[in-house]
């Protein structure tokens, strides 16, 4: 029963994919949209039934289909594991997935390749489910690379534009750097513990007190490198902002709500390993905090509405890693979920705006859209308040828990996280004021056509806005449903160490004041003073550095991409020809040796005879000496 339900859950989007690939073009856009959305919704419904089941039984479900790969030390089954964590993840992957499919019906309706779009989106959901329910590291890796592939296909969806193709390629390759780390991590764990199955690994690692800590740390670090690639952390984050080249629903689904949180999922899944290696946990916390700050500073100056949201995503993911670094897995998961709600809402809202302005993404050419697009405005406002951490919206609770955890472990990281959060409030309201307030700055033609988006676009927005508003109730301080639900998974309960008291209220107050200060600053600068960000050529000083993202792309280009291409040219033009010439040289040398030898074969019998005699003499002499001595 469970097996067939799992197969329905997994294969429903895959069938949607096949349908859209093979029949999509003939079936027409309406059918494509319905089939695509329905196939994900079926998965959602199945997930719901699993969810209800597990809240009662509290028993994880494992299913092994067949043996896939085997090595001398471990066997890998094609198997699935549905426990509290994977079901929770499935809930929001398929739930938000369904909403975004619904949204895409309208958003992509005018695109001639709508069937491909839905096919890729379905395929993405299929791989994401594989990633989440895989019962071992290698099954997770199938999904892991599969979602990377879909990300590649969707970033480069408008393939006629080579810049978009470059962005797609960059995303895939940067992810693969992380994937190599992931694989090496699997190798180490596999040979150390002779299994890479989550359940058996957990038993093995938890009971192994005398294992070689160094190798466990290296394995954990390798896995974290994988997570850095997928979840866009320093130093592998630069692909995510470029990934905004894809259609906006893709940015919402893949590059904000689901795929990029895979790194957090993986580390949470492997919590038993990371708990054993505090040194790696420290690295994770530091990288998370620094990423959140660096990305937030870049977001302050961006003028492309999607780029602001992209850097915001990187920054929020950094906060989640900060929590992971302290072993506060439930806290990170909580923020993953609330972030999925409000960031998906923000991206879809920005999509609605872009749709309304016929493709315009530059906030300098927006403004005053509040009246024309009231639903988009209100839903985005709620989501912005949520991400800024304003009481009592979802983001307030989750972000607060992260900062509180940080405060109890490391004041410096708490300060960094708090600054990043204040900046978040500022740049989000900068975005809101520039987009929705004051006068419209676009063309007359655009102004004429301003309108609210159709209901297929606004309904998902409304649902997500509601979730962004009330999402916090799943984990309120002191009475957290989420912590109880996830409790069977983790060895340590992180919450118990600090009871809720004065410190916590003070921290909440500080966070709230910070958020309000950020909003206030944005209000003053962009609403009161009506500042419009300068044109590209007029940007100077620190702003220019931030606007150009600290020139990290340029540095990577100069340090990695250029040298490898120069090396390639050098190999092709010099080394290859030299090697080839050497071989030819060898051939020529043989030839010359032969012509040298030919000189002795000139047909003079006298010469042959004398050589013959000399030879005989030499031989006889040799034999004589050999026999005597």
């Amino acid at each position: 029963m469970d097996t067939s339900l799992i197969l329905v859950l997994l294969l429903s989007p895959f069938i949607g994919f096949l349908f859209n690939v093979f029949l999509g073009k003939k079936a027409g856009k309406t059918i494509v949209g319905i089939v695509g959305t329905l196939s994900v919704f079926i998965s959602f419904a199945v997930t719901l039934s699993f969810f209800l089941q597990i809240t009662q039984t509290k028993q994880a479900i494992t299913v092994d289909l067949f043996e896939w790969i085997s090595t001398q030390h471990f066997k890998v089954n094609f198997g699935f594991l549905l426990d509290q964590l994977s079901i929770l993840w499935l809930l929001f992957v398929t739930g938000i997935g369904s909403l975004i499919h619904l949204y895409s019906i309208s958003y992509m309706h005018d695109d001639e390749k709508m069937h491909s779009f839905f096919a890729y989106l379905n395929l993405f959901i299929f791989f994401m489910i594989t990633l989440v329910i895989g019962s071992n590291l290698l099954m997770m890796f199938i999904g892991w690379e599969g979602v990377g592939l879909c990300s590649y296909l969707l970033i480069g969806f408008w393939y006629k534009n080579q810049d978009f193709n470059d962005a797609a390629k960059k995303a895939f390759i940067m992810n693969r750097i992380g994937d190599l780390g992931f694989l090496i991590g699997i190798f180490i764990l596999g040979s150390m513990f002779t299994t890479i199955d989550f359940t058996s690994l957990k038993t093995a690692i938890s009971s192994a007190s005398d294992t070689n800590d160094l190798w466990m740390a290296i394995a954990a670090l390798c896995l974290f490198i994988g997570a850095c690639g997928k979840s866009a952390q320093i130093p592998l984050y630069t692909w995510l902002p470029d990934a905004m080249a894809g259609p906006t629903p893709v940015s919402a689904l893949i590059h904000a709500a689901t795929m990029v949180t895979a790194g957090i999922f993986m580390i949470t899944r492997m919590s038993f390993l990371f708990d054993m290696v505090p040194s790696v946990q420290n690295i994770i916390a530091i990288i998370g905090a620094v990423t959140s700050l660096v990305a937030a500073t870049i977001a302050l100056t961006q003028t492309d509405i999607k780029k602001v949201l992209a850097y915001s995503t990187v920054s929020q993911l950094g906060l989640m890693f900060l929590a992971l670094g302290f072993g506060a897995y439930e806290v990170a998961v909580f923020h993953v979920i609330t972030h999925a709600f409000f960031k998906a809402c923000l991206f879809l809202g920005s999509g609605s705006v872009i749709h309304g302005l016929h493709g315009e993404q530059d906030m300098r050419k927006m403004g005053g859209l509040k009246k024309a697009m009231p639903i988009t405005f209100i839903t985005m406002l709620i989501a912005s308040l949520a991400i800024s951490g304003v009481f009592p919206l979802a983001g307030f609770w989750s972000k607060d828990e992260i900062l509180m955890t940080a405060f109890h472990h490391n004041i410096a990281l708490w300060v960094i996280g708090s600054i990043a959060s204040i900046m978040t409030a500022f740049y989000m309201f900068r975005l809101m004021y520039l987009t929705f307030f004051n006068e419209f700055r676009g063309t007359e033609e655009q102004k004429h056509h301003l309108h609210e988006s159709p209901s297929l676009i606004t309904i998902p927005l409304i649902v997500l806005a509601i979730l962004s508003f009330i999402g916090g109730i799943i984990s309120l301080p002191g009475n957290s449903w989420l912590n109880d639900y996830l409790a069977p998974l983790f060895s340590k309960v992180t919450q118990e160490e600090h009871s809720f008291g004065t410190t916590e209220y003070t921290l909440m107050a500080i966070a709230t004041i910070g958020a309000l200060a950020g909003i206030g600053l944005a209000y003053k600068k962009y609403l009161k003073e009506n500042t419009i960000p300068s044109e590209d050529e007029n940007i100077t000083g620190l702003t220019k550095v931030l606007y150009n993202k600290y020139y990290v792309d340029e540095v990577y280009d100069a340090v990695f991409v250029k040298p490898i291409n120069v090396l390639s040219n050098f190999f092709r033009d010099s080394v290859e020809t030299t090697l080839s010439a050497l071989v030819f040289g060898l051939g020529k040398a043989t030839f010359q040796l032969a012509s040298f030898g030919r000189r002795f074969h000139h047909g003079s019998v006298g010469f042959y005879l004398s050589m013959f005699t000399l030879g005989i003499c030499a031989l006889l002499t040799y034999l004589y000496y050999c026999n005597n001595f």
Partner: protein
Amino acid sequence: MDVTTLLIILFVGAFATYFSGDKWAPKVALLISLAAFAGTICLLSQYNSGQEISYFKIWISKPAVFISFYADGLTLAMLLLTTALIPIIIYSSFGNNYKNAKAFYALILFMTFAMTGTFLATDGLLYYVFWELSLIPIYFIALIWGNGDAEKRKKAVVKFFIYTLAGSLFMLIAFVYLYQKANSFLIGDLVKANLSSTEQFWIFLAFFLAYAIKIPLIPFHTWQAKVYQKAPTVGTMLLSGIMLKMGLYSVIRWQLPIAPLAAKEFMSLFIGLGLVGVIYGSIVALRQKDLKKLLAYSSLAHVGLIAAGCYTLTLDGLRGAVLQMIAHGFVVVGLFLVAEIIYRRYETRTISEMGGIRSQSPKLTSMFMLLVLASVALPSTFNFVGEFTVLYSLSQINIWFALLGGTTIILGAYYMLKMFQHVMLGETNVKIFNDVTFNEGLSLVLIIAVLFFFGLYPKPIMDLISPSLENIITLINRIN
């Protein structure tokens, strides 16, 4: 039925094809190749049910030379690769009209005969004869039916011929020396010959020269790119899909069991050589202007990894290597077919003259993409299973080896996606591009189906090759 039946089908088939005339030759050749495939399947089922399929008979009494054909799981895997690919290669060539088709297709079958013989022979001299015999048909195929300037082509092909022939001569010397020691060419006797470690070193080196040139391993690869470029696509497929596997197979079958001490002593060196090939090949591939040359260098990178896997002398290394040999055989034939499909329409192999094909040919794009994904070893493709196993075996020798070999994951994605982008994507090309024909489509679909089926369920192949490779590992670890 025993393995000689297969050889007879191919040998007689080659002549039958020749005498059937230009018009019928392609069809007859296809039929015979399919018969060979069916024969291999029969042999496989006989082998699985425990029946004897090997053949053993004295050929020359002094020196003692035997007609000894022996098939275990490893051999059968190679036969499956060969006989499954040949029908696809022949069928896919129906889109071209070759002059003097009867000779062309007869040569293909004759080459298949020679390669099959190489995989089967367990008498050193017989093996050597087949090994060299396989060179002759490909020499003519590349020389006569190749493309580009005739003079340049001749230069490249003759170089290839002499180069590989010269390398093989060292192998012959090794066999002659071994005969002195063992009074036999049979592999079973050669393995038992008591060779000192110095002797093993020289034998190992002699074999290595022959194999390194054939596979080819860096720095013995200089013949490869030009010949791949100049040969007709069928020739390139034969070379890259099957013939280079003869070299890798021989490493496992002959070199390692006969000279294990040398293999152990210089293990790191030879693994290192393979890995240098991985990185070097990938980097050179990055900026190739010619599509076929790019694929040639990618092949260099892949076989470098396979060779590194062989030289780990572990069961995982050998298993991964064999899996990867099969997977690479299929994917590389598919990729060269795509190059040919593009050539049939645009008459160019220069990447910069392509681009903007995707919007005109969704079917080709999808299939090409799938092949690219298999080539970069996306999990769920057969290539991933092989690459994973090889990299794992490398990590067991030294984690740095796995890291170096693993760069293929990153660099492979880099050059393949870059190539795909410039060949297929971008603004619609002004030149019209017709989507794949039925013939082309079916060939590609078959290849892709194999790659994904065994990517998800490699167990049948694993079970087939594991016992034979375990035997070889036992031979390698024997105490002299």
